């Protein structure tokens, strides 16, 4: 196979940009699964919801999708808190997270997807913004702005979360709750409230991730399903709850997927992330930078 | 006489935290060993490594002359190690009788040859429940039990597996004085029948009266091991419990 250097370089660059975006989508799962041990497989469903809301407001009012997502943060946060409250009362309290909690989130994913189909139909939707279309060129490499801007926004989001976790009291309380709930209680902080805040943040990230997604590619309701594997693969590979690990794993996955799509064809791409996930779970569940 | 249990210099870490650091322990057949140590000293981790719930990272565990590293917990139970959990873990969807039937079916019958009839099984379950004073609640569910009764069920379930070595992990917490006496009498009776017992407890009076030998674990290291009256006078032990 003739591998042109030009093609290779571009594939890697695209992979890096894609990886940055994947990190944004995974950030929320790093919190909900990595730190709170909640398997929220409905996470991609909420991301798609964010995409559609960004689409709706962008198409009807012409507002920039990233701006829309920032305005929607409070609503998504509230949604996350509400979902956690139901989850806690119905499952965590009764100790039934494993079977019923999973079924709950699976049901939510399904309901979200089908509701979107009913409201918006199955056609692909896309947004319009000034940076969708043009690219910048650095030497041999083509960087489409519709990928560069989301990647930068994603990194900003990621950085913001990392700062929050390590520098604020609530953030550190979240880390504490992931490690030792009892100790946190003794420090007179309510672990349930902390977890609710954390889960709220986790879903809030979906608003932004959704907007970024629909900038990068056209969206239809079942797109979320492709992301389930990606998101959990990145989370597990990066070592649960480690933000730097998640970023590295996301970049890695992005590059591998990009190379696969470029040299083997895009129909193999889903197998890459899910295959990665299976292999990681089978052989190194503690992640690359395993704890 | 070869030791029944030989914990040979085992270590166990959780990430950066060292739970066990080169712990060496020998238990002779028929012995009554007490294991004490402040909270977080690694006692439960040690039990988990002996029983196979966790695997030690270095060193080895030898039981009855054979290395058991790498064996799953259920295999070690088949070989004769049984334990009760510090926080009781009953099978919540089954009655008390059925809870006891599990170790009988899956351990005792897995060892010996011909299967006994259901009649025999039921009788044995009731016998075990009688032993811990729970026979009146035989058909009830674990959720109907008090904390204390759940601990007794834990112990009964461990004994049901007909072990050579029984590790009782804080079975006496919260019991009244007479209940503690009952459990101690029970453990001594089991010991007289030939079962080696490791008693992990915080209740010093119980530990002192029960143990032939006492070992002390502090921060993952064994700091004392010998006759109970000598160990409690060991300055390091006193320091560990009373602080500096």
């Amino acid at each position, binding site marked *: 196979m003739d591998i042109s250097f030009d093609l290779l370089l571009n594939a890697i660059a695209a992979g890096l940009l894609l990886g940055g975006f994947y990190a944004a989508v995974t950030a929320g799962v790093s919190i909900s699964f990595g730190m709170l041990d909640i*398997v929220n*497989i409905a996470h991609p469903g909420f991301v798609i919801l964010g995409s559609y809301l960004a689409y709706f407001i962008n198409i009807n009012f012409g507002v920039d999708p990233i701006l829309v997502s920032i305005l929607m943060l409070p609503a998504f946060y509230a949604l996350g808190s509400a979902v956690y409250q139901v989850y806690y009362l*119905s499952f965590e309290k*009764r100790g039934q997270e*494993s*079977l*019923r909690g*999973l*079924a*709950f989130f*699976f*049901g*939510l994913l*399904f*309901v979200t997807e*089908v*509701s979107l*189909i*009913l409201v918006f139909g199955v056609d692909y939707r896309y947004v319009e913004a000034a940076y969708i279309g043009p690219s910048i060129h650095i030497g041999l490499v083509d960087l489409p702005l519709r990928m560069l801007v989301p990647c930068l926004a994603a990194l900003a989001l990621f950085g913001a979360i990392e700062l929050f976790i390590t520098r604020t009291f609530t953030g550190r309380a979240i880390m504490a709750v992931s490690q030792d709930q009892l100790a946190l209680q003794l420090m007179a902080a309510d672990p349930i409230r902390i977890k609710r805040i954390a889960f709220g943040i986790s879903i809030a990230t979906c608003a932004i991730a959704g907007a970024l997604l629909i900038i990068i590619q056209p969206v239809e309701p*079942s797109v979320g*399903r*492709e992301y*389930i*594997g990606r998101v*959990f693969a990145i989370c597990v590979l990066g070592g649960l709850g480690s933000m730097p690990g998640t970023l590295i794993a996301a970049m890695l996955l992005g590059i591998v997927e990009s190379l696969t799509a470029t040299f083997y064809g895009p129909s*193999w791409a*889903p*197998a890459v992330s*899910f*295959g990665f*996930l*299976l292999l990681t*779970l*089978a052989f190194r*569940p503690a992640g690359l930078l395993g704890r | 006489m070869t030791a029944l249990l030989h914990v040979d210099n085992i270590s166990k870490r959780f990430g950066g935290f060292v739970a066990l650091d080169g712990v060496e322990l020998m238990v002779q057949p028929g012995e009554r060993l007490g294991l004490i140590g402040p909270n977080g000293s690694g006692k439960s981790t040690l039990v988990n490594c002996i029983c*196979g*719930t966790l695997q030690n990272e270095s060193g080895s565990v030898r039981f009855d002359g054979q290395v058991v590293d790498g064996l*799953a*917990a*259920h*295999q070690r*139970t088949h070989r004769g190690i*049984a334990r009760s*959990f510090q926080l009781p*873990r*009953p*099978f*919540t*969807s*089954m009655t008390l009788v*059925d809870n006891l*039937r*599990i*170790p009988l079916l*899956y*351990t005792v019958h897995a060892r010996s040859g011909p299967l006994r009839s259901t009649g025999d099984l039921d009788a044995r379950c009731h016998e075990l429940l009688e032993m811990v004073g729970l026979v009146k609640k035989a058909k009830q569910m674990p959720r109907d039990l008090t904390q204390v009764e759940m601990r007794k069920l834990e112990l009964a*379930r*461990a004994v*049901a*597996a007909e072990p050579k070595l029984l590790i009782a992990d804080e079975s006496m917490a919260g019991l009244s004085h007479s209940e503690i006496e009952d459990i101690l009498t029970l453990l001594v009776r089991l010991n007289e029948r030939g079962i080696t017992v490791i008693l992990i407890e915080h209740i010093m009076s119980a530990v002192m009266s029960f143990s032939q030998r006492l070992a002390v674990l502090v921060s993952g290291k064994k700091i004392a091991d010998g006759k109970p009256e000598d160990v409690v006078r060991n300055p390091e032990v006193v320091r560990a419990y009373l602080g500096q």
Partner: protein
Amino acid sequence: MNTAKFSLIAIAIGAAVLAFAHWFKVDYLYFASYTILQFIVLATAWNILGGYCGYVNFGSAAFFAMGAYSSVFMHKFYPLPIPVLIVIGAIVSGIAGFGMGYLTLRLRGSFFAIATLALAVVLQTLVVNWDYVGGSRGAYILRPESLEFAGITINYIEYLFALMLALAVIALVTARVIERSQLGFGFATIRDDELAAEACGVPTLRLKLIATTLSGAFMGMAGAPFPYYIGYLQPSSAFGLEYAVNSIAMPMIGGTTSWVGPLVGAILLGSAQQYATVTISSAVNLLIVGLMLVGFVIIAPNGLIGLVQERLRARRKP
């Protein structure tokens, strides 16, 4: 009631249903009931691993589709009668279940669930890229009009219906046998507290592998006749998410602790879906399934059977 008696009753009921359907001779009823019977098998199969052991499988579609695609493969390679295909489907999906279990059952339940999802997508991608069985274009299987058997001509759809009915009976009897056996007892300990089960001497990994293999095998059996039933098989329909949702929703709504739950769930939900698809739309129908799953899981964790049991228990107490 011992197993022999139960089996006889089940077979008798099955035979009665078959005779009843034969007398009515409405093709649409055959098609609709086939789907429901298929769901009875899938729901029962899922429940062996999910309800009895507590391990959630999101990839039911994968095992179902593997049964279907092994039939497509054999159809092109060396045509065989459907009962043989069913056995082949069982073997293929059973091995897949075993393999997946071996790779992932040492992990916690939540990791296992995610792994099943991953497996489904990987398998789907493999099939989409495999031209021999049609790839993304799909495969046509021509269904003969009728079948000659001992001098009698049977309508082919009736034949498929009878096969699926037999499978449903076998699945239900198997589930009941497991439930009442030492194996089922062991499964329950895994569901209740795996660590304690190990400490009691239960070989949890071995039992879980048995569960995944059996569960996978039955799903493969349900899938094997599918290409003949549907005539045109596409990866998107074989691997469709509705199989995953329904095989979870039906036992959870019906009740996961006994063989009755998946049966009840499959009949109720299956019929409701048939009705909704025809009268409203297939998308709305799926929405209702999803909402019911979420609702039941929150409000009635032990399903309809659980609600009935609670009523009976309440009535027994003075």
